[in-house]
């Protein structure tokens, strides 16, 4: 960069000067191509393969890239290891801007090439790193093996060796375009090519049929006969804690609204008694009784539900199901409370996708771990937790519109999966 690129201007007029320019190119490229220092950056699975490749077995030091720098200001190479989400995208552009030139980018793995497994029905993944920053080398795989990463490094090396003072490295532009579906475009081109080939071959095929009217392929479809195995019974799970029937009876005595969805006509007691031991009891309860019931099972010495497994929700047409999964570490039984929260249909239809539709009291004062879980439910479903100390979006940006796990959620960047 800089002063070296002036070399041709100064040296070319001198007789034999271009040989000196070539020598300068050779030395500079030798230095650049043999010590590419990558930035320590990784978001998901590919990062582990990147780590593996720098360890004893694969040893990235053979290619001069063993010095992983933690600061972008000391790095030459940006290995994009792992999925890029919209929330991460500004950080990546910033990191790329902070790396001093000449800088190179390797997009590692399917996610950074096209979105990979997260291409369809997805509202948060950027489909390809080339939509954000200029990429030099793409390494396919999910995740690529260390050998594949080395192949990418060697390809980059070749690219660097082609640079000269006359055609120096130049900085590309940061792009901020909306993401595109490369897979579908490629599929369309492919289909067009196939059709063209088909049309070209049509005459030849007709001619062949005329010449050989009763030609039969020598290959027969082979169907391997599948082996059949006897089914082996599952080892019955050991019984721990209170039985489901006892839990149901105790809760029913305390709270009138407790029921169990059994999907059958039989009385609830019989169905609950016939449940397999490893299946947790899921009781339906009214919103009014919810907080009382959770408080009761936490403090009651026979229940002692001190461990919150999870709080999650399910979206139906006219209501949400809030499922609170509790367990007793000491005794060993589990209870799932399922609360039906009716959707508030007084809100005008146009505002419904962006407004909170249900209300439920928080349990974060009983279980501190519930705070982040309830924030997740708020973020994904738009359920209002009354009395929650810190109700903010947790996974998505503050200005994100809509609640993604609702069934009627739409997003401009979302592509439906072709069925």
């Amino acid at each position, binding site marked *: 960069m800089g002063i070296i690129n002036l070399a041709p201007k100064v040296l070319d007029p001198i007789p034999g000067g271009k040989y000196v320019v070539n020598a300068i190119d050779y030395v500079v490229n030798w230095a650049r191509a043999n010590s590419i220092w990558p930035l320590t950056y990784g*978001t*998901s*699975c590919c990062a*582990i*393969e990147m*780590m*593996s490749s720098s*360890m*004893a*077995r694969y040893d990235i030091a053979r290619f001069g890239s063993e010095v992983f720098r*933690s600061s972008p200001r000391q790095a030459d190479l940006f290995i994009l290891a*792992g*999925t890029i*989400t919209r*929330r*991460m995208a500004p*950080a990546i552009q910033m*990191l790329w801007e902070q790396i001093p030139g000449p800088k190179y980018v390797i997009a590692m793995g399917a996610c950074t090439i096209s979105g990979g*497994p*997260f291409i369809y*029905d*997805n*509202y*948060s*993944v950027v489909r390809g790193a080339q939509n954000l920053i200029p990429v030099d080398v793409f390494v396919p795989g999910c*995740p690529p093996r260390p050998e594949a990463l080395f192949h990418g490094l060697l390809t980059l090396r070749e690219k660097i060796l082609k640079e000269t003072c006359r055609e120096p490295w130049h900085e590309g532009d940061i792009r901020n375009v909306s993401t595109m579906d490369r897979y579908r475009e490629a599929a369309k081109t492919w289909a067009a090519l196939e059709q063209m080939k088909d049309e070209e071959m049509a005459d030849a095929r007709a001619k062949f049929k005329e010449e050989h009217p009763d030609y039969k392929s020598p290959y027969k479809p082979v169907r391997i006969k599948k082996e*059949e*195995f*006897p*089914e*082996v019974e599952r*080892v019955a*799970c*050991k019984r*721990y804690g209170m039985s489901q029937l006892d839990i149901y009876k105790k809760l029913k005595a305390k709270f009138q609204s407790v029921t169990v969805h059994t*999907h059958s006509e039989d009385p609830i007691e019989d169905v609950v008694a016939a449940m397999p031991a*490893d299946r*947790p009891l899921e009781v339906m309860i009214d919103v009014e009784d919810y907080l009382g019931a959770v408080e009761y099972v936490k403090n009651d010495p026979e229940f002692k539900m*001190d*461990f919150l*497994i*999870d709080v999650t929700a*399910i979206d139906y047409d006219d209501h949400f199901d809030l*499922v609170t*999964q509790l367990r007793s*570490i000491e005794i*060993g039984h589990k209870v799932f409370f399922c609360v039906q929260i009716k959707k508030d249909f007084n809100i005008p239809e146009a505002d419904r996708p962006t407004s909170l539709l249900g209300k439920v009291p928080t349990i974060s004062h009983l*279980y*501190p*771990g519930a705070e*982040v879980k309830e924030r997740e439910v708020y973020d994904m479903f738009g359920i209002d937790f009354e009395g929650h100390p*810190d109700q*903010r979006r*947790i*996974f*998505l940006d503050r200005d994100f519109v809509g609640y*993604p*796990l609702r069934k009627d*959620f739409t997003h401009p960047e979302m592509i*439906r999966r072709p069925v």
Partner: protein
Amino acid sequence: MSITRLPPGFKITRETNTEEFFINMGPQHPSTHGALRLTLRMDGETIVELVPHFGYIHRGMEKQAESMSYLQYIALSDRQDYLTAIQNNLGVVIALEKGMNVGVPEKGEYIRVMLQELGRIASHLVFFGCFGGDLGGQTCLLFGFKEREMIHDILEEVTGSRLTTNFFRPGGSRYDVPETFIPRVKAFLDHLEDAMRDYERFLSKNIIVLERSVGIGVLSKEDAIAYGCSGPVLRASGVEFDVRRANPYSIYDQLDFDIPVFHNGDCYDRYKIRIAEIHESMKILRQCVEKFPKEGPWRSKEKPVRLPVGRYYSEIETAKGLYATYVVAATTGEKPYRIHTRGPSFPHIAALNKMAQGHKISDLVTIMATLDPVIPEIDR
């Protein structure tokens, strides 16, 4: 000077004479183990309060699962906690098996348990490396990954993939294990026994490790349960809870192994417990090698994966802790209405504030390393 307006998430209000300031750590930071962002409120070099910000690798897996078939979701579960991909597969598969009501033959169960334990050792070896590395001993990274590559060779031979295995299916697994599987596991165990002795000598009594981890980041028993921590983090705080014992799945009830429990709840205990678990896993593997049935079916009869209407729940113990899958089938068919995953790392990071308060900022790196979080599993 007191701060009148705090940034979002901070709760403690207090009067101090010193000047407080805020530090942003992440989302690109070598010791946050991925794309996690922590905002720290500092008083000098001491952490007053810590607020984690999630979502930098939120990939919307649960939304995607609604338009996928059950079998396709098994491949997504690999990418949640990629260090224990093979264990996540089992968690999803057990939930599906409960709905389909299929059993697994004995040989299939042994394959499952052995791969589970190999995955556990691999994950703990990464912990060993990262813990040493975060404390400044980069050599540990080389050591931990050396033995891990041997496990990956075995996994590759069996499943066809190093990291994202996608191996188990309802009723068994995709393939039978090759003939070389058992001898290789045997050879690996003999090697690991020696190697672990060296590694423990290297790190367990090291004065730098002791100084930087004993008494740092203490999580009390009550807090650990209240925040929903599980796995080694919970057991290091003195709670004997392991799903393999509490609700045994597969054939863990027929195997003889101990649940190591430590009582201090500090960083050193969280390190020691993982070393102890590697030894327990080796014990399980040795039993499995002896009992492994040479003949017999390795999977039950193949059935289409269709779940009847209902809700199915499964939980397993991965290397990080309690991994639960909750499947909702609203109609009988091949597609789920909703699949929810409970990952073990999420509560651990929620409890991080409790552990880091009052410690120096350099201790935060140690605490993060001993929690061994995997961020994509939190954000999903």
